[in-house]
């Protein structure tokens, strides 16, 4: 099929540019603690990479299927608490061994997500959004009221390694977060290219039609929801270990749940790189605002203002809007007849151009 003139044209230069950018980003991420080991920088890096992972994980459900969960903080908090409780009850030696429990916390979160998803996915659209928020607040309330288990409002202190000091303290957490962000990206990329992922995108476009062509929509949605929650739960576990003290209102935090959604929207819903770009731009900005404006909470106003401006100017997010601009530019360069068969209507999800292996497929 390749070489069929009808399929989308993809200049090799763009592929090379993309690979180069990706390699540069990976190198930067790997070397960051070496180049800038001061705790202020690594702390910011940990939170940025954390949100790359969170927004990417959330996107597997919200972006691909179009089911907007505003309650993913439930899984974040559950991951953190289940991890913390295991650490305390199993008397795990602080240091590196606790990281081995991160996948266990993820699996426990996945089990919870099967239950929540089973119920929440009986609804669609706005109702689904509300049901997910409700579950998040239910878990927050449980965290506050099961005092004997969670310590309630007084918080839950986690052991941490006293051997790690100075500049080094943040570094293991940074690499753990980075590993999870990469894992989320790999899973997201893999799903996106699979028939399963195509089924999810079909659900986003027209769920009943997907059902009519044999897509087991309930199973697909639940699977995406659980995978997404599992990743978020693992990230929550590392977060809990890093901050060493858990309070229900700070891990079952609606702001965390909303932030990951905003970042995915900001970068481009349902695209692979959108949530990454959204997190890389928004999280450092948010931390910077929080640092400069401090306790006034004015940083939230700034955050909201930035978001409103972007929504007004680039309503579909950065990646699809930029991809459209590039496509338009390329078409003009090639003349009116050589624009390729790929027309992007206003409603298009506008992903990055397809890889050669996927010619004719809109969704890399």
């Amino acid at each position, binding site marked *: 099929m390749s070489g069929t003139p009808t399929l989308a044209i993809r200049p090799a230069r763009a592929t090379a540019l993309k690979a180069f950018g990706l390699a540069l980003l990976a190198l930067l991420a790997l070397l960051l603690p070496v180049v800038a080991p001061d705790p202020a920088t690594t702390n910011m890096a940990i939170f940025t990479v954390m949100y790359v992972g969170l927004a990417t994980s959330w996107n597997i459900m919200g972006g691909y299927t179009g089911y907007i969960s505003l309650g993913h903080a439930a899984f974040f908090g559950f991951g953190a608490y289940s991890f913390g409780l295991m650490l305390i009850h199993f008397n795990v030696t602080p240091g590196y061994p606790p990281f081995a429990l991160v996948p266990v916390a993820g699996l426990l979160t996945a089990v919870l997500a099967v239950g929540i998803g089973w119920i929440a996915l009986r609804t669609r659209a706005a109702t689904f959004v509300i049901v997910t928020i409700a579950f998040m607040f239910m878990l927050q309330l449980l965290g506050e009221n099961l005092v004997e288990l969670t310590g309630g409002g007084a918080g839950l202190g986690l052991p941490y390694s006293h051997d790690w000091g100075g500049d080094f303290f943040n570094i293991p957490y940074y690499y753990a977060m980075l590993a999870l962000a990469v894992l989320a990206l790999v899973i997201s990329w893999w799903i996106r290219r699979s028939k399963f992922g195509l089924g999810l*995108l079909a659900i986003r476009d027209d769920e009943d039609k997907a*059902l009519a062509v044999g897509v087991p929509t309930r199973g697909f949605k639940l699977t995406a929801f659980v995978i997404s929650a599992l990743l978020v739960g693992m990230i929550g576990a590392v977060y809990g270990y890093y901050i060493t003290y858990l309070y229900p209102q700070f891990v079952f935090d609606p702001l965390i749940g909303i932030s990951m959604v905003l970042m995915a929207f900001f970068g481009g819903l349902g695209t692979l790189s959108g949530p990454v770009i959204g997190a890389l731009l928004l999280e450092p900005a948010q931390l910077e605002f929080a640092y400069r404006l401090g306790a006034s909470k004015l940083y939230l106003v700034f955050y909201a203002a930035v978001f409103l401006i972007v929504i007004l100017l680039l309503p579909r997010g950065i990646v699809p809007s930029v991809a459209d601009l590039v496509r338009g530019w390329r078409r003009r360069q090639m003349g009116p007849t050589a624009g390729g068969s790929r027309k992007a209507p206003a409603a298009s999800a506008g992903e990055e151009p397809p890889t050669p292996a996927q010619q004719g497929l809109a969704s890399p």
Partner: protein
Amino acid sequence: MSLLEINDLSKRFGGVVAVDSCSLSVPAGSITGLIGPNGSGKTTVFNLVTGFIAPDGGQVRYKARSIAGLNPDRIYGLGIGRTFQLARIFPRLTALENMLVPVRRAGLRALLSQGQWGHEKERAMEMLAFMDISQVAGTLGGALSYGQRKLLELAAVMMAGPELVLLDEPAGGVNPALLERIAERIRQLNGQGTTFLLVEHNMGFVMNLCHEVVVLHQGRAIAKGTPNEVRENPAVLDAYLGT
């Protein structure tokens, strides 16, 4: 032999009886038309057969097996495909991706791996070429013309090789040249072994294409026979003209 057998099928929506003890059968290898005035229950019969709504009573048998109450994806898996009125396709997927969405008897491995895609894509491109729309393989569904959507929907439903395809107004809203192309493709697919049941208002299209016609009126099958027999049936004229 009947591929699809509907017996005493009933469905009410509140006080409205949409399908009322309806019985009909679709012979294997046929192109059967389902006609009737607006509101006679044709689309409801489609929705009942394909599992989109559950019947209040009666039976639907496919290859002698009861399928009433199964989910639409299961029914598609058994080999019954359908199209919708007004051509529903996935607007934000390309035409080729639209072709690759259908799932039939796919195991977990098939869903997660990409190994089968080469073969599937080849088949998809062949089917697009068969419908004369391979030039739009890379175009997003939402950017296709209505006629192209009609052809794409039919092409996509054929991807999983269904034995029976239910077409809801395949001729609705398309120009005469395209109408002939659609009829020709249906005839060819039928020649290759696919059975069709179609709902249509364009009588010329039905009479020209169908081997057998069933007439619905107020949720009941009031007549059946060859197109010519049905055309001359006084009960059918009554139903249509309301005399």
